[in-house]
């Protein structure tokens, strides 16, 4: 990046590092941090939406819908989440290709599953064999986002369902006494009040989500774990201008510090949000705030 980087062998330690840390592959490494943040930014709202729908379904008075919601919540409890990640990435990909195959190649008669192979016609391949590299990467990232959203949506549904049940029943009865319909009670009374009850669970979930982001590596994304392994490995002078020993330990130490920073910042932010939401609520937190301001 700098002009003096042309011949790294002649440089002092500090300058050498300034060159080393700004070479091309390191920018891919830094870019992968954006991938993690992007995943968080997209997954959090989508998972919350999935969770909201799941919780609504679980509350439904129509039994099949309620079973569906409750099943969705229950399924992620007993099984390790990483198993779901590995499962959904293949399952979703096959589901998409299968659907496209049915639509695009109706004349195809061979079975799709032949022994150990999953064969669809060329036009149904996702992404298409002719697509450029970036399409493949984006598709992989897209699958990862859906996978994360499904798994964390179930966790969120669990939390939101609990939050909806925690809203004092008298509130709902009052709404009914005012002549509100079930739908009105839900949207005008229940939903605005449930957040403060759901927030401890949701903040916990946000922490879990942050700490689950390195699992992107297992979904075949070139994320921070991938680059830390790549860049940290021993490099000889044959292949690079910047030979070094096995530095993977230091790269992962850096990731560790990065995540500690992320969780610490989130902790502080969520605490502030909780204070804000507790304001004027009939909870012990709200009571504490009221005393603080009047005293």
């Amino acid at each position, binding site marked *: 990046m700098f002009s003096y980087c042309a011949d790294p062998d002649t440089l002092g330690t500090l300058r050498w590092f300034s060159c080393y840390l700004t070479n091309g592959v390191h920018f891919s490494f830094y870019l992968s941090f954006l991938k993690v943040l992007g995943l968080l930014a997209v997954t959090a709202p989508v998972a919350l939406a999935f969770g909201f729908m799941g919780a609504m379904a679980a509350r439904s008075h129509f039994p099949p819908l309620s079973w569906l919601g409750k099943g969705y919540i229950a399924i992620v*409890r*007993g099984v*390790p989440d*990483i198993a779901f990640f*590995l499962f959904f990435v293949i399952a979703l990909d096959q589901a998409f290709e299968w659907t496209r195959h049915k639509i695009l190649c109706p004349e195809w008669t061979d079975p799709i599953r032949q022994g150990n192979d*999953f064969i669809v016609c060329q036009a149904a391949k996702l992404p298409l064999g002719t697509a450029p590299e970036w399409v493949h990467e984006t598709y992989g990232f897209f699958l990862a986002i859906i996978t994360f959203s499904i798994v964390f949506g179930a966790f969120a549904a669990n939390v939101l369902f609990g939050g909806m049940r925690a809203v004092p029943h008298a509130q709902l009865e009052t709404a009914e006494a005012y002549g509100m319909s079930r739908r009105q009670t839900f949207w005008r009374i229940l939903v605005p009040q449930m957040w403060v009850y759901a927030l401890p669970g949701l903040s916990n979930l946000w922490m879990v989500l942050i*700490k689950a982001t390195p*699992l992107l590596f297992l979904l075949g994304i070139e994320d921070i774990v991938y680059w830390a392994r790549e860049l940290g490995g021993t490099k000889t002078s044959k292949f690079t201008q910047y030979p070094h020993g096995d530095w993977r330990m230091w790269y992962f130490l850096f*990731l560790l510090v990065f995540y500690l920073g992320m969780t610490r910042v989130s902790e502080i932010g969520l605490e502030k949000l909780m204070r804000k939401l507790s304001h004027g609520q009939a909870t012990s937190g709200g009571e504490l705030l009221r005393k603080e301001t009047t005293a």
Partner: protein
Amino acid sequence: MSCLQTIHDYGLRSLGIGERLLPKNDFTLCEQFTLIGSGMIWNVYFGIMALATGFLFATALAVGKASQNKWLRKPSEWFIFLFRGSPLFIQFFFAYFFFLSLKKSYPMFDAFTSAWLGALIVLFLNTAAYSGEIFYGALRSIPKGDIEAADAYGMSGWARFRRIVWPTMLRLAWPAYTNEAIFLFHATTLVFFSAFPAWQQRGDALYYASYFADKTFNPFVPYPILAFYFILLTLVIVWGFGMINKRLNRHLPAARQTKMRFRLNLAR
């Protein structure tokens, strides 16, 4: 090949006993059940060992964090923050490469780079931090009256801790601790997907499940089998911890012996 023969060949495959080569094609349902079940040995081993060793350390951490002494409190706080604030996955990677570089200078660290010891140490420290936080919360919510009663009986120091504080702490923390135990068993599936190598293809349940999914390109068989085993394991944990919970609460009047409710909210 009959199913009994398969169980004989692959039942202890994850420990390196039995057939050397994994099945290569024409996987039967029996083979998948047997191998994934064989892998569960590792999950159970990691889970039980980490829980057993982590329990004592967690108690020490909780007492340390609740201590008035700064020199005890600060290290405990930092330890808990370090392990609760970072992903277990990264901890595994870091520990593995850390042990690897130690091994280069001191050959006696050889065993630490293999999963049975290295990963176990990480899981031990991790669960100690999470349980320590749970125990700390319980320690702070011990009824004041209990401590005062102990004082009135002339108990202090070690006797008070062993006979009053510790049992009450456990009793209050138990439902959350059960949750933590379940999550720990789930976390053991990460071991062979982080840096720790599955030497001679001796892996855990998820390792074999993903082996089958990769070979057959069909995730709809091995992963549900894995889910079946884990739900079974979860039920066993809930049952076992429920028994202990009963014992911890046996002195309370029947009306206050609330049944442990497992609302498995996320502990981590």
